[in-house]
């Protein structure tokens, strides 16, 4: 079922009205309600795990893992810490925008949580355009917010309509002060042309990579490295922009990239098929997968498992996979080689996961890079960003606050 422009306008209008009640509460009150809503949402998602699995195409254990790891990051403490970072005490006060519109993609169903919770925490009501493929989780979120507090419940609403419906898109954004868009670059560009760059919070195309230095492959570290990498690759079936597509592996006389890839297959990805099984591959993705795997086999090394494929290729001949647990191991001699390969990815590179011994070096190089705006995190946590982790090179509250002369704020 889809909504028409009149319905969308009505909901937007109601949200603008609800914003006043939301802002009348203190940040501390909102943090308590939101923490309660997150816990409630976790419970309802657990009860509806099969429904979510059917809607998202992820396996039941994967849905359970995704909701747990996303919602467990949302508690009163993390919310208050985030609010403090977003609104530090300073001369010029910041006020929440009047309303945020969010356009969700269908690939990572929990992606909506951070957008919605952070906006509400800061006092901005949220109108969510849900993906037509996945309506269940936004609806559960709305119910959980309503149960936690009427002020929260009335400050978030959902709409759905066919992508590209110009009239509905106009109705969605015309009263929003900012529009957060997840999706393809085409989707982002279409929305940018409608709202202008200043009001757009763009989350377009992106990829992520991992870096494993030599010490991460040592006898003592290898198991941990492989376990972390496998989780990063398998989470959300490698459908999102934080999923590593490439794993740069520092090779040596003792450890070849092929050896590492075989270990990743046998000790990491194969066992994952039991603990966090992959969902069914849509036929259209399967067609791309067959091409990608075949080319990898012809041009290099391919390790094929029941639910995964690992290509070993040089940095000069990388070919992006369609996701769904098809990953490329790229041998490099030094971290310089890895960054030479990453630099052309520019702003499309979202996250670099790194082993503990390499992460400070990776972080420093990302900080120095003029081309890259990715953030870094330890291997094993690429798919579980903290509530306050940056997004697309900006703080998660980017665009949700605007300067005001003497905005009344209660804390």
């Amino acid at each position, binding site marked *: 079922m889809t909504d028409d422009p009149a319905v969308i306008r009505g909901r937007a209008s109601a949200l603008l009205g609800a914003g006043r009640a939301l802002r009348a509460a203190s940040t501390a009150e909102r943090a308590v309600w939101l923490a309660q809503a997150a816990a409630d949402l976790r419970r309802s998602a657990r009860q509806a795990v099969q429904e979510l699995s059917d809607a998202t195409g992820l396996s039941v254990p994967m849905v359970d893992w995704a909701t747990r790891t996303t919602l467990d990051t949302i508690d009163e403490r993390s919310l208050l810490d985030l609010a403090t970072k977003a609104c530090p005490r300073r001369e010029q006060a910041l006020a929440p925008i009047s309303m945020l519109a969010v356009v969700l*993609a269908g690939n990572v169903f929990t992606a909506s949580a951070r957008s919605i919770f952070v906006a509400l925490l800061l006092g901005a009501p949220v109108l969510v355009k849900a993906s037509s493929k996945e309506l269940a989780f936004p609806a559960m979120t709305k119910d959980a917010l309503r149960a936690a507090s009427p002020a929260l419940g009335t400050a978030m609403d959902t709409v759905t309509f066919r992508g590209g419906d110009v009239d509905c898109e106009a109705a969605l954004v015309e009263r929003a002060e900012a529009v957060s868009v997840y999706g393809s670059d085409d989707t982002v560009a279409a929305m940018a042309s409608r709202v202008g760059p200043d009001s757009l919070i763009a989350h377009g*195309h992106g990829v992520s990579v991992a870096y494993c230095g030599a010490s991460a492959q040592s006898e003592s570290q290898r198991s941990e490295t492989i376990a972390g990498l496998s989780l990063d690759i398998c989470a959300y079936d490698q459908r999102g*922009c934080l999923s590593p597509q490439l794993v740069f592996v520092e090779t040596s006389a003792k450890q070849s990239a092929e050896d590492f890839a075989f270990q990743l297959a046998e000790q990491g990805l194969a066992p994952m098929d039991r603990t966090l099984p992959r969902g069914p591959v849509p036929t259209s*993705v*399967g*067609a*791309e997968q067959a091409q990608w795997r075949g080319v990898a*086999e012809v041009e290099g090394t391919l390790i094929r498992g029941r639910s995964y494929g690992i290509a070993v290729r040089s940095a000069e001949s990388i070919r992006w996979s369609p*996701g769904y647990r098809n990953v490329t191991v790229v041998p490099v001699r030094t971290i310089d080689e890895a960054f030479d390969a990453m630099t052309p990815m520019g702003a499309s590179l979202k996250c670099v996961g790194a082993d503990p011994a390499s992460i400070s070096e990776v972080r420093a190089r990302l900080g120095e890079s003029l081309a890259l705006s990715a953030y870094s995190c330890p291997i094993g946590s690429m798919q579980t960003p903290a509530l306050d982790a940056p997004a697309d090179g900006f703080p998660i509250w980017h665009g949700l606050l605007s300067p005001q002369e003497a905005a009344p704020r209660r804390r």
Partner: protein
Amino acid sequence: MSRRNELKSRIEAIIERFDKGEQVDPAHRDELIEDLATWQACGIPEYGRLQRDDDWPAALPTDVFRFRRIAAHPVEEDVRVFLSSGTTSSERSVHAYRDLSLYDLAARAAARRMLFPDVGEIRLVVLAPHEGDAPESSLEYMLARFAQWFGTECTWAWRHGQLDLDRLTDALRRAESAGVPIALLGTSFAFVHAEDGLGPRRFALAPGSRVMQTGGYKGRSRAVDPEVLLEAIGHRYGIPAPFIINEFGATELSSQFYETTLRECIEGQPGPRRLWVPPWVRATPVDPDTLRPVAGETVGILRIDDTANLDSVCCIQTADLAKRVEDGIVVLGRAHGATPRGCSLAADQAMGAR
């Protein structure tokens, strides 16, 4: 006799037997596919690297033709190289031929069976460039052969890189006046351009006239739903729907499939619109994960084992979605862009920045 020539003789024998109206035993075809694959795996290193399934020879993905030369012969022996459409080298498949005789044999036999079953020769109007203007196109090569084999006369309604609407109109009006049937042959996007350009001009072509359209749009015209285009073509030229058929071919293949409706209409045994697969070809929708045949009418990705691909690779894994319908197949289109990747990077975009 060399192994290659022995295999070539066997392929020719199957096609010629079919062309004479004799039955072709699928077991003979399958045996030939096995032998071809074994020989090709030895002579083409890229193909030899693919692991074969227990029961089936490995199928080479069509994408490999974009990145590697796939041929069992050295480049000096090429007599023709066909390229797929596209704007950059990495988008274009390359299929090198040492010998076009099998291609010709297969193309002629298939067209005679499905496109011209009721006529030896017919007036042709082609909505595509002449072979001389597009020597790298396998379609244009095939259409030029059709002009030689089946054409009483042939009008190429294409000039200076675009459809020549005046020449097209003239050829159609002449056929109308003479009351002789014609065959209109061209790409789907050319037919869309004709729809857009001909305006109110409509034609009442003689009974027996037919249309063969092929290929997708690839950004060369607005995309039109196939059902809508079928209806528009029928209305524009006065040709009944069964006589408007699709041809399915690809740069990586040497054989073509045709929709069944024209032949079945002539035979008085209409059936569902589907692609006929020549008996020297095995077309199988396969599961994308296991690459094993799917059951019944389940949608899979189309594997094509084309025995006329002698000097390249016979067993090809396409990216087309397809399903079986009765004794034929229906191709549901290319899978590209269908991936619900949300914020994941489109491959070519990222690599384009390198």
